[in-house]
């Protein structure tokens, strides 16, 4: 069940941006879901050490599961623990 490669837009905030060294990037990825995508990104950006199990994820500005399937053109944001207020 290998996925075709498609463009995914990734954005980082806060500690993730500092660890990745970039605020945004567009990747060609066959990752089926956000969880797999984060693992891929950690390969490319070894500084990205924030533990995956503490992350939430949004796709197209909605909180979703880490296992929600990705589609071409999705805007994905990995969300470290928030601190509003």
């Amino acid at each position: 069940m290998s996925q075709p490669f498609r463009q995914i837009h990734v954005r980082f905030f806060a500690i993730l941006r500092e660890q990745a060294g970039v605020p945004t990037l567009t990747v060609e990825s066959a990752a089926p879901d956000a969880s797999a995508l984060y693992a891929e990104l950690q390969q490319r950006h070894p500084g990205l050490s924030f533990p995956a199990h503490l992350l939430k994820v949004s796709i197209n500005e909605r909180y979703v599961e880490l296992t929600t399937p990705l589609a071409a053109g999705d805007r994905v944001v990995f969300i470290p623990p928030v601190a509003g207020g």
Partner: protein
Amino acid sequence: MFELTAQPIDSAALQARLTAPEAGALTIFEGRVRNHHLGKPVTKLEYEAFDDMARLEGEAITTETERIYPGTKVLCVHRTGSLTIGEAAVWIGIASAHRQAGFAACRHVIEEIKLRLPVWKKEHHPDGAAEWVNCTVEAATLPANDELTARQAALPEVGAAGQAKLAAARVLIIGVGGLGCPASVYLAGAGIGHLTLVDGGKIERSNLQRQILFTTAELGAPKALAAAARLRLHNPSVRVTSHEGELTPHNARALVAGQSVVLDCTDNFATRFLLHDTCLALGVPLVSAAVHRFEGTLDVFRQGHGGCLHCHGQGRRAADLDTAGNCAGGPVFGPAVGVLGVMQAAEALKLLLGRERESPRQSRLINLLDGSQLTIAREARPDCPICSRLDQLQAAKPVAVSDTSLFLAATGVAALGPTAQSLYLTEPGESAPAGVTSASALDLARLREVAAAGPLVLTCRYGVRSAALARLLRAEGNAHVFALTQS
């Protein structure tokens, strides 16, 4: 209404926007940058937001709050950028007719903001060091073995392994009323990973007698939503999903699939039958309770473990039962639903911990008036038209009807047929509910006559007399006399 701003927050201007002649209460919360955090001095804070989503999520929070607390008007502003000590980072104002809803709504907004708003803060210390709060400072202090459930995890029957099972579990609760309120709060306290609450009702004043998650501040709010808000405040590490609507043949399979345990906290037979059959088909354990006045029944149904709901008292149709024996809207003793609801939580926890042993094979009848508990074996009938033919049930397609009795008929239940009569038995001085055909429990001659004429269903106030008379009439050769029970 929610706003994100890079400008200093002007409290007076925001307050002026909330002025309304019908509002008797104005409740304001301001979160300010303070000069210390977790014991360290702080010189300034930088707030970074995921703008687009923060606006969407903030608006969702304020809109939801106005729905949970009817009559409130909510305004919330969150600051971004660099803030010095004493500056406001977040401002929440609630205009409401009464103070109760104002306080509750204000607290709801700030708790949800803290949990959901994609905003991060970077803390600067006098030595020039800086760190992302919540990413490092507070994440590091997130309790792995949460103190909240420590007294439960200390039980040898639970332990760290059992606690991990609970944290990984998903429990679905159908109905957040007299049973669902106590059941869900004890499950939240136990540290269940994910609770899903399903209820299409709104909170009424007459609910407060026994629906302990709610207060006068939430009157008119959707039950599922208000209950979820309270449970999150009770144990923030539990994920709570609310579904504002009823269980229907359309959504039943989707809601039940993937759950570790399901709780039947409904007050009508149509939903009860639908839920039971769906759980049976999908192999998800079901903890079912029902209460009539001072008495309740408790059952754990599991595929292949003891009898199902249809093994005994066969041929019952939800529509008939709901006419004859449904207690929705009727008198009820608060502690009776309370005890049964807490017991449902206990049975769910036992199932998740692998500690249920014999409970699936028994019905428990608990009477809060005389303090008695009766345990009745619930063996599987080898010829049960439902649980002995699971393949049929599993193959059944969800049907587009709201009357579950049709759903059941479609899956193979032998209905009693159109000639069946239904009688409510009364004792001297007691009257039957309106619209129900009744007979004196003492008039055995008439009962024998009716039983001889064709299928007969008996019911009565506590279900004891009807069961005894049905047994008697069957023993006399009337094979088609049944007594209704509530489970």
